[in-house]
């Protein structure tokens, strides 16, 4: 199917920002960073809001947006439902230190709720794409890709935040980022292999005419640049422009990857044993 540009944009915003929130918490709790979570939450809300506006722009009747809460069997409804605790947590955490000062214990509880809600949101978003009509999406790589790119993107974001907050990126966080990045990239490459052999006459060659540009751009921005960045990061742990460049590059690559994901999500042919597709003739 055609890449849904507003959804590519909102996916990028969700994975980078919510991922940064989750991984910043991990950085603070595990690696002793002092990333200000209120700033992270505020930035996340603003960028998520931009993403949400993009999502609404692809609706035919955006004014009926709240109607999406009606059907709990629909993963889109579940997305909306999980969005509510995410938004509430981020708002309360974001206002802490600006409008009021909450006790540390209460903040920790809110952060944990925010973490769980963020993971739940990304999970139901991934499940929304698992539909039998599009065999390239109906496999384990879809939720794995969503979760791993969410964590990997967040790791890059938290690295940048840690350098800004503490002056240097902790080695433990660097190693974690490398592990998550390798896992996410491996999963994306497995998905690439899978969609090139999915059958039903809807195989997608990554360097074929319809995906060559998007896939090549993803390889450069999402694989090559992060590899170079992570390789030099150990020597430049306090050089924030490096981490900024890698983070932005990875963020853009998420949108490109989502575009490739959409193109790969072709509908099955009516009769794949024939060489003419009777599927949608009008779009």
């Amino acid at each position: 199917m055609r890449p849904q540009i507003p959804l590519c944009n909102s996916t990028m915003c969700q994975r980078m920002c919510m991922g940064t929130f989750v991984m910043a918490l991990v950085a603070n709790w595990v690696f002793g960073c002092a990333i200000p979570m209120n700033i992270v939450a505020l930035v996340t809300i603003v960028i998520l809001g931009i993403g949400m506006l993009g999502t609404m722009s692809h609706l035919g009747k955006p004014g009926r947006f709240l109607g999406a809460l009606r059907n709990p069997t629909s993963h889109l409804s579940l997305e909306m439902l999980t969005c509510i605790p995410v938004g509430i947590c981020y708002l309360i955490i974001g206002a802490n230190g600006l409008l009021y000062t909450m006790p540390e214990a209460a903040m920790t509880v809110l952060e944990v709720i925010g973490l769980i809600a963020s993971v739940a949101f990304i999970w139901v978003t991934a499940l929304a794409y698992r539909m039998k009509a599009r065999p390239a999406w109906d496999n384990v790589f879809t939720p794995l890709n969503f979760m791993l790119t969410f964590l990997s993107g967040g790791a890059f974001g938290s690295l940048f935040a840690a350098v800004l907050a503490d002056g240097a990126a902790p080695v433990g966080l660097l190693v974690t980022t490398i592990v998550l990045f390798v896992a996410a990239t491996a999963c994306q490459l497995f998905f690439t292999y899978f969609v090139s052999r999915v059958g039903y006459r809807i195989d997608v060659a990554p360097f074929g005419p319809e995906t060559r540009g998007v896939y090549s751009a993803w390889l450069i921005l999402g694989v090559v640049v992060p590899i170079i960045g992570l390789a030099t990061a150990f020597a430049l742990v306090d050089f924030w422009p490096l981490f900024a460049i890698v983070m932005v590059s990875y963020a853009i690559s998420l949108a490109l990857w989502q575009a490739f994901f959409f193109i790969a999500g072709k509908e099955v042919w009516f009769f794949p044993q024939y060489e003419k597709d009777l599927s949608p003739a009008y779009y």
Partner: protein
Amino acid sequence: MSYPEEYKVPQLAPEDYENYWREDVQATGKPKQYTLLIDLDKCIGCKACQVACKIENDVDNGVFWTQVQSMGPVGEFPNLDYFYFPKQCQHCADPLCVTVCPTKATYKTDDGIVLVDKDLCFGCQYCIWACPYGVRTKNPNTGMVEKCVLCAHRDHEHGEMPACVVSCEGNCRYFGDINNPNTQIAKYYAAHADRAMKVHDQFGTKPSVIYLKPRKGASKL
């Protein structure tokens, strides 16, 4: 590359064909399942059904609720395959579009017809993605999703047929309640059940529309 085997007519015993369709649709518990039976042996590709549907339902330009597509010619003379395939909503017994619709705009009536409530649809197109048959369209003018409604506004109870059935020049379309063995559609199905074919049955949607394979021109079906 492997193709699904489900397009082959199942090797059932003759006494099992009669229930082949009804078991699926009766499992939904709906009292009726109005549906279509399309005998591909008789479709001549005139597209009268396509035009009649447009007129009857005032369908917008660029939007199609039913389409007749041609498959072929494929193969080498003299072994050529060529048939016409009328395509519209399959009014599935277990429709994926109903499951995924976040606003519950898409719903299945007690008559078995799948409809879209235009007061609720907000045009997210999720149902279009989920439908394995590609029979739903987003109307660019209204921003909402549209599809075949089996002319639900007509009085089916008293024998009024959908416009596509009435206009069919080849008499290939039959309409009625498949659950009722006394209807014309049920009797025609029983008489030709060995050619009955479900499309993409492997996705579990239980399509209610019955296609009868053409005797010639579709050797791979």
